């Protein structure tokens, strides 16, 4: 993106503050799975706006198509059939980037500026800075980034950062015919979700709730779930997602400490040389001529 942003909260592999003079309101996409009819209009709108096309695939016995997120399909309707107490529930979840407040992809990325987080909460990949290492894949708790087979760059949902920056809603929101998808300030979306949850509880969904996982600092894509106590029913939506502890050790502990330790080792050598000094066998020979 060549347009300059002054509202960058975090920038990958960068140790000084990015341009952040401008503060924007936090936004969120709310996905109410209880209202979703699985029409995939959001999937089509995403490809249309972003001008990408998925390859024609094959049917594997489910409406889910393609079978997984890809570098061309940044959002995907996932269909799960769940049987409980003799009834069948068709649980449909729109999958894609969750735009975490504490993004694991950004934490893992080694390339300065390849991943940025705007003050409105959107986490965006800047593919021209992407080096194709795949560390973002290891960092993501939701298995979202996909490395393109064409150019070895990582791709994922942008939350239509280009549309949002000019006051439009994301393309998927615009296409949704049932208002299962809504978009606005994060605060408003939480209020809206709470109204929906109260309504669902009245109608017998005791465990209805909001999915805004605290383990990643909250997300800027949230779900209203009828079974908020069992998010894994919805095609393995993680119950308590966090950045993996191995990624935390790698980037949080080892990265600064090991860098300091290697520098210290080299300095220790230098100071050994200028204090104790070299060990010269030829001096010895002069002391005790053979």
């Amino acid at each position: 993106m060549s347009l300059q942003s002054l509202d960058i909260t975090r920038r990958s592999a960068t140790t000084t503050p990015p341009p952040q003079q401008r503060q924007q309101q936090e936004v969120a996409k709310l996905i109410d799975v209880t209202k979703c009819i699985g029409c995939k209009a959001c999937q089509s709108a995403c490809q249309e706006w972003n001008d990408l096309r998925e390859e024609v695939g094959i049917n594997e016995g489910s409406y889910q198509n393609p079978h997984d997120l890809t570098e061309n399909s940044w959002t995907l309707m996932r269909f799960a059939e769940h049987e409980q107490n003799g009834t069948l529930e068709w649980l449909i979840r729109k999958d894609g980037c969750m735009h975490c407040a504490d993004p694991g992809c950004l934490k893992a990325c080694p390339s300065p500026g390849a991943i940025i987080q705007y003050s409105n909460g959107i986490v965006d990949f800047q593919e021209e800075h992407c080096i194709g290492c795949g560390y973002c894949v290891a960092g993501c708790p939701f298995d979202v980034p996909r490395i393109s087979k064409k150019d070895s760059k990582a791709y994922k949902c942008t939350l239509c950062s280009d549309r949002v920056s000019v006051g439009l809603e994301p393309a998927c929101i615009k296409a949704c015919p049932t208002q299962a998808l809504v978009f606005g300030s994060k605060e408003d979306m939480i209020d809206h979700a709470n109204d929906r949850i109260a309504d669902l509880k009245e109608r017998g969904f005791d465990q209805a709730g909001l999915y805004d996982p605290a383990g990643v600092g909250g997300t800027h894509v949230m779900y209203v779930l009828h079974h908020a106590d069992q998010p894994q029913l919805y095609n393995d939506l993680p119950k308590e997602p966090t950045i993996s502890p191995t990624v935390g050790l790698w980037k949080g502990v080892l990265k600064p400490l090991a860098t300091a330790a290697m520098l210290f080792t080299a300095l220790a050598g230098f100071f050994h040389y200028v204090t104790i000094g070299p060990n010269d066998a030829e001096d010895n020979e002069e002391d005790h001529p053979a």
Partner: protein
Amino acid sequence: MKTETHSRLIRRYTPPERANHWLTAITFILLAFSGLALFHPSMFWFTQFFGGPVWTRILHPYIGVVMFLSFAGLALKFWHHNLISRNDVEWLKRISDVIRNREDRLPEVDRYNAGQKLLFWTMIATIPTLLITGIIIWRPWFAGYFPIDLIRIAVLLHAVCAFVMISGIIVHIYAAIWIRGTVGAMVRGTVSRAWASKHHPGWYKRILQDGDKS
């Protein structure tokens, strides 16, 4: 080699051994710089030595395979000189004398001292681990075949082993500068008699007895 027995210099490494060492050393330097570039942003500029950040990512694993093969040659050639002896334990206990150049207080060192042996075994542990974890995280060729939990462990282990290895090699390089006359062993293949009798008296005695067979 009768002539060398009487000369001031003793041969310590053959030309193939030296070539093998320097191939390993050159690939190590390339790997350390390209790897560190992607480890901490303060060193990201090292990517410029490799034709940019994408080339750094592409080249690093191929160089890694070359280093592994090259090191395997060194390991096969030198492992039997690196078996730990009782003297080595004693040597390590007197590490403060080692650091202060007080060799007269140390037990007799043979071809390699305990520090050199420890470095050897550190490389034996880290280099194969770096190869295996490196293959697991190698994109675009292999990473796609491994589960994400394994990739996360591999990426951490790769960084830990690289850190241990780089720290070890910094000590290795410094030791070669610190102990005067050592660099010649790997560059020209020879060391002086004074060097041998001071730093590797056990080895020197065997040379005097057996001729130039090390």
